[in-house]
């Protein structure tokens, strides 16, 4: 394939660097500096995709981020497929490979195009109307619809690329490096400010970079020469950083902006190696200057969507910047003078202009005059009513407009062509401005919205502010930037430009056909026509937001950058509402789509979330432990021997803990050091039971509620001294308990002298239980008298492991005689090993969290978060004994006397025994009194914990059941998908009700 549409000279591509690439399986070549779009056009390829609903052939339409048709998918193995990219933005490299999207099976033969034949029966809201009702049919259609409509393929394997995040602070951020952005930067650097200038394109200068050099001159320089000179002067200034290929995705309050910088997508595979693909910038700017430019509008007429119909400014860019002519026989359709510049550029480079169709009566600008002199035919007060050509335009039908522009008159003129340039004027790119909370105002004479007011430290300059004349853009940008930065640095530039602002607007051009027979597209990507909008209005949709959702106009990946204004204009016309009163739909971030990779950055795999490991972790690993996640912690779950299943391991560990001795790593329990003269009073207020009389050296179990009376957390607190306690919390609740206690101390009880310190990570906790635990402790911990008299249950002693101080608590979560050694973290593993050695003769067995849960369930001890779920009070748990009747108040007390918490038929914690002792219930299973043939059945409650108890040789379970307190001995049912399990309500303590084992 040859570049038969490439001019022999000119353009900013590097003609010495030839690049071959693949598109839809075919090999083409282009040059370094080409976008996929410019390279395809150079090869004469316009058809690049199919439309979403009707699968109509679509061609490259624009030259930038606003592209609505040319969505492609990059093909690069299983892990780098990249869908939804705009061919107008992708820079090609050697070996580049992409495919069209939205076509099945191929772009040239598309089965979905059959929709086009049926299009009269696929109007707006078609999907809603047909497939949303009846709901059960949706499943039948969904597969087909999704396949037919598909927006690209996602990769099936992990993304191998590197992404990065960067935080950046600057004095002035300038978004857009067109003439306005460059001028603003020129002023800003004079102030010695730290300036960041970004542009989404790979080049600078904005639309000025492809202006016709015969027409535009700045200080006698050609536009590109002025841009290059200005850029290099800026670049030499140390106060400024300039980034290209960097698109602002979101503009948040307080001048916080998210930008994505593309660092290596444009490089060949070889050059990419080891480089960061994209970087997400999180920028805080003291001041922001928006110079985001404007987007050219199309014209809305019948069949305005064929390949070969392009924006006039895009055609100008392709010929002037890339040296590519988009056609050989051109018709230009316009309502303004800007399109005449395109005509002159094309004409000067040998492209035949068949005609310029202008809806205006006349223009007294110099460009139309010049075109006249060049002998270009201009058809004033005419409109295009139809185009011909299936995969490429080949003819336009032109008719004269009536005086009031509401209809057409006279005879039809048919003009052959292979390219139609459309120019409907420019829309200021106010997307970022509105994202930042700025308010817009509608200019009724110029037909566009422009910035009105903002509460941020921000200005808009250039064409995004509704100024389109180059001289005015540069002068006003200088003035506004000086004012904005309190400076006075004006530079007089000598600017030659001959565009005039005369402009006439018709949102929907009249046609010679009835409206049902036409296809005037407004949103190309979502296939919304002006008729769909009319239909939505007829069906009663009035708000522009509703019309948008019903017709899906502006909801495609381009977010209506091209067609939004026409949709508004048509609604405004039909409803006879002023545009300003209609308002715009909301522009939401991102302005251009972001990759997930850039959003995630380096926060993947082990960096995705913090992983906390105890000081004994490596020992567990070495001994084959399986781990479970508890909050951010990795906790040893069970330690399977060779070939042992989880069930077998847990049974063995649980038995050993009761019969011989067990050892558990309890380091993850939250620990809060509480000191201060009001520490006892503080505990009185946060726990349900009384603390003032707890003797020094004693431990007590406490239940903490929320003020709504529901159980929040639990744990043992030890009084270390007169004004000194150490509180333990659940592993998962540590941080939130700490926060809650701090909150109360700082905000409700600032008068209390209490100081809290989280010491969870400071101590390792080794828990040894079982009948031999005392003997093991005696071998490991020195300076402690372990006799029951001196060291009874629920008390604490200080001792030494070798010469290291430790705290030993005699407390039990298993119901066995049990000790916890708390020692400085870094001695945790040594202490653990000492216990293992000392326990060898007593068959000490490490047990994990699963066996711990089983052991405590045998004793009916609750786990906050397992037996409780934020709707359970201590009374529901049948733990009335822990609620102090004497205390005037504690957190949650008042709520225990609310009518709802005192209600009779609340769910209570009970035990459940299966009639078949081998049957193990599923945790979460529902419990009923009466089994019906099929759901729904009245549910009484659910199973909260369930195990096979190796010590009792039967299945046990805890459950919360409506009115459970009164149901002891009652037979209930647990219906499962394949059977119904019969159970009997029992006491929740299954083993050693008297607590004899604590003193074994």
């Amino acid at each position, binding site marked *: 394939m040859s570049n038969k549409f490439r001019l022999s000279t000119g353009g900013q591509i590097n003609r010495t660097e030839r690049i071959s690439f693949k598109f839809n399986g075919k090999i083409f070549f282009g040059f370094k500096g080409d976008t996929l779009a410019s390279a395809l056009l150079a090869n004469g390829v316009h058809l690049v995709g199919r439309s979403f609903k009707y699968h109509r052939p679509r061609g490259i339409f624009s030259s930038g981020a606003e592209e609505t048709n040319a969505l492609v998918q990059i093909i690069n193995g299983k892990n780098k497929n990249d869908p939804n990219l705009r061919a107008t933005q992708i820079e090609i490299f050697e070996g580049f490979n992409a495919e069209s999207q939205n076509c099945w099976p191929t772009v040239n033969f598309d089965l979905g195009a059959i929709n086009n034949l049926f299009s009269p029966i696929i109007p707006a809201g078609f999907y809603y109307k047909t497939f949303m009702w009846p709901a059960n049919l949706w499943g039948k259609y969904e597969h087909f619809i999704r396949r037919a409509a598909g927006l690209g393929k996602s990769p099936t394997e992990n993304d191998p690329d590197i992404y990065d995040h960067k935080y950046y602070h600057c004095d002035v951020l300038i978004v857009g490096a067109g003439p306005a952005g460059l001028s603003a930067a020129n002023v800003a650097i004079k102030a010695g400010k730290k300036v960041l200038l970004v542009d989404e394109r790979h080049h600078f200068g904005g639309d000025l970079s492809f202006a016709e050099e015969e027409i535009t001159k700045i200080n006698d320089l050609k536009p590109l020469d002025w841009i290059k000179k200005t850029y290099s002067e800026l670049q030499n200034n140390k106060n400024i950083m300039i980034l290209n290929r960097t698109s602002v995705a979101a503009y*948040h*309050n307080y001048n916080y902006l998210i930008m994505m910088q593309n660092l290596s997508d444009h490089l060949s595979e070889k050059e990419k190696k080891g480089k960061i693909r994209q970087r997400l910038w999180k920028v805080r700017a003291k001041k922001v200057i928006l110079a985001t430019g404007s987007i050219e509008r199309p014209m809305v007429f019948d069949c305005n969507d064929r390949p070969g119909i392009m924006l006039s400014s895009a055609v100008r860019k392709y010929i002037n910047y890339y040296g590519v002519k988009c056609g050989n026989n051109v018709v230009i359709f316009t309502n303004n003078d800007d399109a005449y510049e395109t005509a002159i550029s094309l004409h000067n480079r040998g492209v035949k202009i068949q005609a310029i169709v202008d809806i205006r009566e006349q223009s007294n600008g110099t460009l139309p005059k010049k075109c006249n002199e060049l002998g270009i035919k201009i058809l004033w007060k005419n409109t295009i009513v139809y185009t011909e050509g299936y995969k490429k335009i080949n003819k336009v039908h032109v008719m004269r407009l009536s005086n009031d522009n509401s209809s057409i008159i006279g005879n039809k003129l048919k003009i052959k062509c292979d390219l139609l340039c459309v120019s409907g004027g420019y829309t200021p790119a106010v997307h970022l401005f509105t994202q930042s909370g700025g308010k817009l105002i509608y200019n009724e004479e110029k037909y566009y919205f422009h910035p009105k007011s903002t509460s941020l430290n921000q200005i808009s300059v250039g064409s995004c502010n509704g100024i389109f004349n180059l001289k005015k853009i540069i002068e006003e940008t200088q003035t506004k930037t000086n004012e904005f930065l309190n400076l006075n640095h004006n530079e007089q530039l000598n600017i030659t430009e001959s565009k005039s602002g005369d402009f006439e607007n018709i949102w929907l051009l009249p046609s010679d056909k009835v409206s049902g027979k036409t296809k005037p597209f407004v949103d190309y990507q979502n296939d919304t026509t002006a008729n769909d909008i009319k239909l939505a209005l007829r069906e009663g949709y009035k708000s522009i937001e509703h019309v948008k959702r019903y017709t899906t106009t502006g909801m495609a990946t381009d977010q209506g950058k091209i067609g939004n204004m026409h949709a508004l204009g048509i609604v405004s016309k039909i409803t006879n509402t002023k545009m300003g009163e209609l308002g715009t739909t909301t522009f939401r971030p991102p302005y251009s789509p972001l990759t997930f990779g850039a959003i995630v950055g380096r926060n993947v795999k082990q960096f995705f979330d913090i992983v906390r490991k105890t000081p004994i972790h490596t020992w567990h690993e070495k001994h084959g432990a399986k781990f479970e996640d508890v909050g951010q912690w990795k906790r040893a779950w069970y330690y399977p021997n060779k070939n042992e299943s989880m069930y077998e391991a847990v049974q063995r560990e649980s038995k050993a803990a009761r019969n011989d001795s067990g050892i558990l790593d309890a380091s993850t329990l939250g620990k809060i050091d509480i000191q201060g003269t009001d520490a006892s009073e503080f505990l009185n207020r946060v726990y349900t039971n009384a603390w003032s009389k707890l003797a020094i050296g004693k431990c007590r179990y406490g239940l903490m509620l929320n003020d709504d009376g529901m159980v929040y957390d639990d744990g043992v607190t030890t009084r270390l001294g007169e004004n000194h306690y150490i509180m333990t919390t659940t592993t998962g609740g540590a941080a939130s308990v700490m926060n809650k206690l701090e909150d109360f101390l700082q905000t409700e009880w600032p008068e209390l002298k209490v100081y809290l310190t989280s010491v969870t990570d400071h101590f390792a906790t080794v828990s040894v239980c079982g009948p031999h635990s005392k003997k093991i402790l005696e071998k490991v911990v020195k300076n402690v008298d372990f006799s029951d008299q001196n060291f009874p249950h629920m008390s604490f002693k200080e001792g030494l492991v070798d010469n290291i101080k430790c705290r030993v608590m005699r407390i039990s979560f298993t119901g066995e005689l049990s000790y916890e050694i708390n020692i400085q973290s870094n001695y945790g593993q040594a202490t653990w090993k000492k216990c293992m050695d000392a326990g060898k003769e007593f068959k000490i067995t490490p047990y994990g969290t699963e066996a711990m849960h089983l052991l405590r369930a045998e004793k009916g001890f609750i786990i906050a978060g397992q037996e409780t779920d934020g709707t359970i009070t201590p009374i529901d748990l049948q733990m009335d004994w822990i609620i102090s009747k004497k205390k005037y108040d504690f957190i949650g007390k*008042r709520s225990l006397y609310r009518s709802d918490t005192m209600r009779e038929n609340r769910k209570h914690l009970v035990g459940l025994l299966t009639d078949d002792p081998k049957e193990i219930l599923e945790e979460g299973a529902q419990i009923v009194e009466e089994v019906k043939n099929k759901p729904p059945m009245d549910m009484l409650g659910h199973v909260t914990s369930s195990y096979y108890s190796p010590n009792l040789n039967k299945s046990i379970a805890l459950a919360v059941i409506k009115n459970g307190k009164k149901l002891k001995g009652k037979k209930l049912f647990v219906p499962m998908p394949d059977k119904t399990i019969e159970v009997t309500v029992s006491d929740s303590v299954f083993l050693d009700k008297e607590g004899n084992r604590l003193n074994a």
Partner: protein
Amino acid sequence: MFIIKCPYCGDRDHSEFSYGGEAHIVRPKQPTELSDDQWAEYLFMRKNIKGLQYERWNHAHGCRRWFNMGRDTSNDKIHSVYKMGEKPEK
């Protein structure tokens, strides 16, 4: 994403703070004297203001102190930041 001026640390990024709901709701000193309705009023009822709202914030990833803030919920403009126990500026 605001910039919040912690009364103890100064300007810091939003991400360092956590939100703590409506401010100036005092926990009753004598809950037992309250009717169910009065207690429910304290416990559950919160305003949902469009406009200037006083709310609690915690400099969670900083000094860990709680403080109050007057914020316009319609545009996130922060009008005042003041310590616990203090009254908002008028």
